[in-house]
């Protein structure tokens, strides 16, 4: 073919990537030529480099398609509804939960607590004791949120009469769902129980939901969440553990419509207060936005891109684009955290929640460099936050085009975790998360970071080798 490119190279300033001897780099550096040192390590013995699948599909091509779908997704908040009416497959005796499938017997404390709370909230049980019996009786069908186009933070419990946000990916037409965020502390999603939890949930159903719903009905184009996430990333959020900017942006976007559709000034004031005081209100929009963007990437033959990462507090599970029905699981990890007063690591439940959908979609821990305000989680300095994100580029196939990081000269966020790269580099996805108390009924005890467990990636890679 053409050798024009070799000539084009002549006369150009060199920028060298050095892999190996430091002396090679040094002598070039001595000549004033920029050198990028690769911190190269020998690959795991016996790990095959996969370029095509057994069935002959070019994996890079498949991954490019999966990532194209993720990047071109445009999730928009189009409305709200009651779970049983709008979530496909939902019914009165079903409870959706975070993470891969799990039985009541294997469920962790906070998830059990949240199931108990939801049954009380639904009026299916008089009290928590009765709810626990009902949950264990087999009369309740447990199903992962992810099997219903939904995601839930922490315990991730969605019961039939909970109000949910409805998102539509305008590029592909698929929908995604999530509940409204309750705030921090003693809340249902952290397994918190008690009258204040139920009262808050009821208020969210009777006051918050109708107020937001009426406002959204007057916005024919909905609220473009891709745009809000992109802006929030420029305002110090990574849209998983920090949602302060996103929450503010959401209030601004919906504010006029809230005012115009208000029937009661006091209720409106309380709605605004509630959202304002809950820095994580936007989490329950950034999560389903991730789900809405990732679902079209499910089912690309030959793709090794991770389309789901989710935890139920017992297991950590992932799914691959090319095997969208199959969960690969490993025990959920322990979060390295900072704790609220009176709590310690001994109180912590293992990693829990569907919120890792944000990392899967290319923000959250992937975009740590965008969130200097919470860098204490990764060791305390903005430089370490930047390094965390730079490290994540090692395991992603692509970079997002809409989501960019100012501190990295507006480079796109790491997007499309490639299970091959995870195995080749040994670098595991960075996860930012909250910490739930291990016992039912207590609630949130801290926040922190951890890496996804290697075992489920290894299992997925092994299965992927055989397709």
């Amino acid at each position, binding site marked *: 073919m053409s050798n024009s490119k070799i000539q084009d190279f002549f006369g150009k300033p060199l920028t060298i990537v050095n892999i190996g001897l430091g002396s090679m780099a040094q002598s070039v550096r001595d000549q004033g030529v920029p050198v990028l040192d690769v911190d190269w390590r020998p690959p795991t013995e016996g790990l095959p480099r996969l370029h095509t699948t057994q069935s002959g599909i070019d994996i890079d091509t498949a991954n490019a398609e999966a990532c194209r779908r993720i990047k071109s997704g445009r999730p928009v908040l189009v409305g709200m509804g009651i779970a049983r009416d709008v979530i496909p497959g939902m019914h009165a005796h079903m409870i959706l939960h975070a993470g891969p499938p799990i039985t009541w017997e294997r469920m962790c404390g906070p998830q059990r607590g949240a199931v108990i709370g939801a049954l009380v909230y639904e009026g299916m049980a008089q009290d928590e004791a009765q709810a626990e019996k009902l949950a264990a009786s087999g009369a309740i069908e447990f199903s992962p949120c992810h099997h219903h186009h939904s995601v839930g933070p922490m315990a991730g419990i969605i019961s039939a009469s909970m109000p949910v946000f409805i998102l539509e990916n305008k590029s592909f037409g698929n929908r995604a769902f999530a509940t409204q965020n309750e705030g921090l502390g003693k809340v249902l999603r952290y397994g918190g129980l008690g009258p204040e939890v139920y009262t808050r949930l009821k208020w969210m159903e009777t006051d918050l939901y109708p107020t937001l719903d009426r406002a959204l009905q007057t916005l024919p184009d909905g609220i473009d969440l891709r745009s809000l996430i992109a802006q929030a990333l420029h305002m110090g959020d990574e849209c998983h553990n920090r949602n302060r900017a996103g929450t503010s942006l959401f209030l601004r976007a919906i504010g006029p419509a809230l005012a115009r559709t208000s029937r009661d000034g006091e209720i409106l004031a309380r709605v605004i207060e509630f959202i304002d005081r809950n820095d994580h209100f936007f989490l329950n929009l950034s999560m389903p936005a991730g789900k809405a963007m990732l679902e079209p990437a499910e089912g690309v033959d030959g793709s090794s891109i991770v389309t789901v990462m989710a935890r139920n507090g017992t297991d950590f599970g992932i799914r691959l684009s090319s095997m969208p029905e199959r969960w690969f699981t490993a025990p959920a990890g322990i979060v390295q955290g900072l704790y609220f007063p009176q709590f310690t690591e001994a109180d912590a439940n293992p990693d829990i929640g569907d919120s890792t959908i944000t990392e899967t979609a290319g923000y959250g821990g992937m975009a740590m460099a965008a969130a200097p305000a919470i*860098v204490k989680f990764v060791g305390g300095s903005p430089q370490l936050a930047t390094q965390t994100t730079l490290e994540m580029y090692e395991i992603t196939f692509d970079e997002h085009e809409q989501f960019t990081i100012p501190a990295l000269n507006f480079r796109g966020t790491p997007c499309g975790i490639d299970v091959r790269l995870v195995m080749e580099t040994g670098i595991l996805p960075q996860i930012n998360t909250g910490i739930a108390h291990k016992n039912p009924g207590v609630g949130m005890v801290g926040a922190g970071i951890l890496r996804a467990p290697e075992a489920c990636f290894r299992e997925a890679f092994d299965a992927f080798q055989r397709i």
Partner: protein
Amino acid sequence: MPVKSIIKVGEYHDSVSLMLVAQALSSSPGVSDAAVVMATEANKGILAQAGLLDEAASAANSNDLVIAISAEDEASSTAALQLAETLLKAKVSAAQSGEFHPRTIHSAAAAHPEANLAVISIAGRYAANEAWQALRAGLHVLLFSDNVSLEDEIALKKYAVDHGLLLMGPGAGTAIINGVALGFANVLPAGPVGIVSAAGTGLQEVSTLLAKQGVGITQGIGTGGRDLKEEVGGRMMLAGLRALQADPATKVLLLVSKPPAASVTEEVLDQIASGTKPAVVCFLGGNPAIVQAVPNAVPARTLQEAALITARLAGASLMETADLLKQEDQQLKAQASSLSSRLAPEQQFLRGLFSGGTLCYETQLIWQELLAEAVYSNAPLRLADKLPDSNHSQGHSAVDLGEEEFTVGRPHPMIDNDLRIRRLLQEARDPGVAVILLDVVIGYGAHPDPAAELARAVGEARQIAAQNGHKLIVVASVTGTSGDPQGLEKQTRLLEGAQVIVCGSNAAAARLAAYVVQDRSDEK
């Protein structure tokens, strides 16, 4: 336990910093629990649950910072509150732990779209994978690593050529690309000569000899030693040749290699004939007549001859190369006969100790032509002349100390002189030795001051020879330029200070050495 608190009105800190402070307070002496929080309603609830909410804290609002301590005595809580103040004021050190290094070529290239050349020097068994990654990322590659399989080399070069990329190597120790010396290479002037070489030190020798004539280069492309084998098909030499033919800055081409496979020779010569630029072809040990017949092509038998012809084609005001070499030969012969007179009768043999493989090879070609006796080597021209034991010379011997048998687990003799110095002393003990020939290769990548160490060793070698009543003749050439970090002139001076006879090229040094012993045979 008593609770003590401080309210800092309107002082905002992010919650994570505050949790860190609280953590430090909780572990300070006498403190049972501590909280450092903004006094939001939610946080006040948490304080109340923990029994840390006193009256002052209850009254604070969400813009205020609360530091609350539960401690066993007044002193402990006061100390803890002071600690809190200190920690809150502590500025995070600006100095951070090092810069981030990408772990893969893929991510280095993604982060730096301006990156255009990968230099790979990791263990051979991993090198091909990395070279693939570099080519796929659109990078040209200098593959310094050895021990890459022939199959990998062929596949990599096929891909590179198809995508307009250079894949120099495997085993490419030298390249000069866009004026930058890569690997073992010298500081050279820019000029009209484009070089493609399958031999690393061959490329260093011709490029520095050109520089000595004031002639510079556009590019020095190293192809790796196997490129001109039938299986590889000269892919990189052909690609480099085509690129230089099309490069407007390149006026004269210079190719250096051992004689290629017949089919490859034909392709290379066809490519030269199809262009318009003159090409000097130095197929060391090949048949010049084949080259002579080809339009644009000029054969050269040694690296020195190649450099001189090329320099002249590039416009250096030199006399006809054949005349120049004849003139030099006369001087060398005169010098040889005066040297020869110092030798004892039994001093008959030449010993070449080389750090550069191609210089060793060139020397053997010259010696073979000028000497009646066999020339032995660990890397011989003919299998029959292989040294039975690489560690012991016999007759005339030219030893390539850069061969793998010497370098496993040891630095290359261009970097570390120890091996060569030991061998030099060993040769000096041999009463049959007349002349020791050395190559001194300087430039980037090489030892910072090889002549200093070698000169010392030569002094020692002379003393050893003197114990036999012998005078030892040591001849050397310095492959390098004035601009090299070690400095051509300084290296030459150091060697001459140890009575080493320094010639202007390896070929001249080899001829001088040969003439010294040739004269002796004549005497007999």
